[in-house]
């Protein structure tokens, strides 16, 4: 079976952990996030009739991007950037994280998950901003950890992008 390491990146409180908690198989407690700074989970996806085992490294979401996290990024095949649609600053943070990720792993596939899609009324990130992001070549998916909206799609998109990598 194909195995791929992917990292979950996003600033504090964007719902990375909740986003995956329903969809991944987890054996480690969340406390690892605040202690070691990472929690490893697993999600199996099938893309184009190919089963892929995604090993998810959920990195602790500090506002800053600490040196500890850089080593966690090494060897990753792709990453899921997570931002909170209700907080504009999380998108900026996601951009910052993306730049730093490029610095460590180079050009690797990634998908931006705009979380808390169920709270659309409170959104601070408007359509125009999103189009602008998409214009930069980013893949953006609206997700909701509560309803499960877009979560599977986000993983599928990322997996497909990774498989297409040479």
């Amino acid at each position, binding site marked *: 079976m194909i195995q791929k*390491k992917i990292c979950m990146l996003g600033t504090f409180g964007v719902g990375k952990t909740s986003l995956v908690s329903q969809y991944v198989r987890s054996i*480690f407690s969340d406390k690892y996030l605040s202690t*070691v700074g990472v929690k*490893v989970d697993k999600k199996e996806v099938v893309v184009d009739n190919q089963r892929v085992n995604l090993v998810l490294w959920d990195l602790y979401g500090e506002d800053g991007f600490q*040196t500890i996290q850089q080593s966690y990024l090494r060897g990753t095949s792709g990453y899921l950037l997570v931002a909170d649609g209700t907080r504009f600053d999380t998108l900026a943070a996601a951009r910052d994280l993306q730049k730093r990720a490029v610095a460590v792993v180079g050009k690797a596939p990634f998908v931006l998950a705009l979380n808390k899609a169920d709270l659309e009324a409170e959104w601070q990130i408007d359509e125009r901003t999103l189009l602008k992001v998409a214009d930069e070549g980013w893949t953006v998916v609206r997700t909701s950890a509560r309803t499960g909206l877009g979560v599977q799609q986000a993983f599928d998109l990322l997996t497909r992008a990774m498989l297409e990598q040479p």
Partner: protein
Amino acid sequence: MSDARSGPDAGAVAPPAADADSESSATRNAGGDHESFHALRTLLVGQEFDRLDAMHARLDDREARRRDVAEVLPHVLLDHASDPRFTHALTPPVERAITASVRQNPGPLADALFPVMGPAIRKAVAAALTGMVESLNRTLEHSLSWRSLAWRVEAMRTGKSFGEVMLLHTLVYRVEQVFLIERPSGLLLQHVTEGEEGVRDADMVSGMLTAIRDFVQDSFQVKDGEALEAMNVGGLAVWIEQGPRALIAAVIRGSAPHTLRTTLQGAIERIHLEFSDEFEQFRGDTAAFDGARPTLEGCLHTEYRANAGPNHRTLWIALGAIAVALMVWAGFSLRARSRWNGYVDTLRAEPGIVVVSAGRRDGRYAVSGLRDPLARDPASFLAGAGLTAADVDGKWETYHAAAAPLALARARDVLQAPEGVTLTLNDGALTATGAAPLDWIAEASRLARLVPGVEKFDGTAVTDAAVRNLMNEAQAIVPLFAKGQSTFAEAQEENVRQLMARVGELARAAAILRQGFRVEVIGHTDADGVPEANLPLSRARAEQVVQLLTPIAGARLEIVGIGVGSDDPAVTSTLEADKQRNRRVTLKVTSIPATATSRSVQP
């Protein structure tokens, strides 16, 4: 090219020019001949010209030349591999290339050398460890317990070092799982377990393990190339051996020996060697590493404590052997001791030998004491006791023993008793019996008490014998007298002289012995004549002899003359010859009891 071609052209034109001295023909054929000759030349060697052209073209084509060289170079190198000139020529550039490569990026060379360096380094480390184990051995020499004694026996039996045996018994472990993890992604390439159980989500464990290693490495800022090698939690340990592209993590229950580390190192090196291409092309497909499973399974070592079971039997056998050996030793020791005791007892019983101390000293038997020079040699008893001179140290001081046999021997030695004299010693009293000269008796009675072990000398018996002899000798001499006279008969001079000599000797003996004797000189007559006349005659005859003896009698002889007439004849006969035998004097010697005489007078 054009220059190159000018040669042959010129040459080809040359032949007509050579005929130029034939003026007429040259002038005649100046125009037409040249063309026809060219035609002829093309006809004859035209193909060679084409080949030459092709050859020149090829020589000018750098790409073609490169291809040619590339084609032959490997063959040249292969065919002349043993030619030292090649080695000589190639060494400097290769060295420079390696140096440049390392300066530029040491990574590839380090990766390539990794499988080779590992074993070499391990070998050096193993040698250092051996020294350490030896020093450990020495430390353990001093710790003695029943268990360590048992291990020591096993070490002797199996020929292993004590430390090795101890490790075998102390460290019992089981490698339960082995992970092969890709670096740096932490993706699980392969996972083998001992038995069916194991972790279902090994891929997550693999990731988390990698995360924790990264965490440790980042948190504590360790040097490059250093990484977390082991984690211990109670009886569980995770040992990690890493290579450039992957690492092995072994989950171990119990306490594993250091040799397992070597096994893990060997496994990761082997995997790097066998799967270098797979690592290079790895894009997440772990199936490419299925071939590494046997190597990983080779790391699933298990060491059971139950192995000690059969060893107990051999331990008992060993202990039994020791017990038998001890018993045999004790038997020999007992026998040796009994022989020794027997020897010492013999010495103690031997006259003239006094054992002061006896025992073992410096692994040998030792005996010391006093020895009379006349006693038997202590060494002469060794054979009888079953010992040899090598077994025993003897130390003897000389002394004079009072023991009866030795004292007697010494007395014999000192007194030099003449033949016929027997000496006996009883309770310190030396007794002489038999016949001996009085001089010797006197000497002996003086010397005997000086002999150690002799308290007094009893010469009574030998003296009595000597005295009796003297008395008998004296009494045996009978001087004869002339008929009717008190003068000696004819030819009695010798007889008288003998008598005087005997009595003289008796007098000397009396002086020596301080013993008084009464010598009765009895005068006799024959039966002729009347008794009134014979009695005085007999007295006169006695008196005659008394006169002779008195001067030589000394102080201890009492000479008394008595006349008995014819009352005590030697023979009763009327023959004249027999009558003469009665005209005589006889002596009767008796000893005077000490109290009745002046025996107390000292010589």
